[in-house]
């Protein structure tokens, strides 16, 4: 008797990855392994090799929550992003994510290390009460098929007196309806 295992692509749950866009060409790195921030516009960068001079900013990160398959589920929504863990010194972490007066979906622009004009909110340091990253330009937006969230834009702005970096955790959360 020959046993044949059959794995269904749709049948578990939705598959979700975090993508990042870099350079003027909007090159997409899928399923990034980290959100390290530093002095170059690169995904999965080495922060030790690309440190930030005190008083200067990291390059912006332009990232998306990307559903690559629905896996039999019907809906992905209620996107929340936040950071847990302290930053070094007096650095601040800014973002476009917000729970109210959402600015709509940002159109990609080459990431900069000057003060971000897009990321003008403070990154939450605990789970927001409601969605703070949109889909289709709206916080109440939903995905019922493969696709991506709006761009999450964030940047760390260091202080001239900062003497060390830090390690913290970026949280990307979504709700899924079977």
């Amino acid at each position, binding site marked *: 008797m020959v046993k044949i295992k059959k794995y269904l692509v749709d049948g*578990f749950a939705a*598959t979700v990855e975090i993508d990042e866009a870099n350079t003027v060409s909007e090159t997409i790195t*899928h399923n990034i392994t980290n959100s390290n921030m530093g002095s170059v516009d690169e995904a999965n960068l080495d922060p030790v090799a690309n440190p930030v001079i005190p008083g200067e900013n990291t390059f912006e990160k332009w990232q998306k929550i990307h559903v690559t398959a629905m896996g039999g589920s019907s*809906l992905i929504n209620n996107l929340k992003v936040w950071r847990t863990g302290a930053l070094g010194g007096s650095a601040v972490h800014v973002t476009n994510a917000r729970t109210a007066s959402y600015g709509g979906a940002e159109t990609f622009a080459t990431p900069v290390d000057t003060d971000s004009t897009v990321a003008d909110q403070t990154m939450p340091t605990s789970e927001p009460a409601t969605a703070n990253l949109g889909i289709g330009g709206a916080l109440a937006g939903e995905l019922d098929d493969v696709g991506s969230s709006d761009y999450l834009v964030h940047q760390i702005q260091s202080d001239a007196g900062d003497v060390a970096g830090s390690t913290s955790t970026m949280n990307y959360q979504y709700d899924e309806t*079977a």
Partner: protein
Amino acid sequence: MAKHIDGLTGKVFNSEAEYLAHVSPVTGFKPTDIRHQGKRGVLIAKNALKRSGSLNKKAEADLDKAYVELGGKAPKKRKTK
């Protein structure tokens, strides 16, 4: 045309469709298979379904099976009186 890069391997694809169709040499699964995200991805999916109240028995059993296939420990069975 924008390039698409696999974050795990650095391999460059000409399109998102090509990226989604490839079998990862790291995980052995396509990016469209939840097992490509590993045990952590399976747990993330379970929690995402729990938050909407739609983690039914079948979905939980399927995800637990995937978790074990990926090398995770089988969940403890609840004792019934």
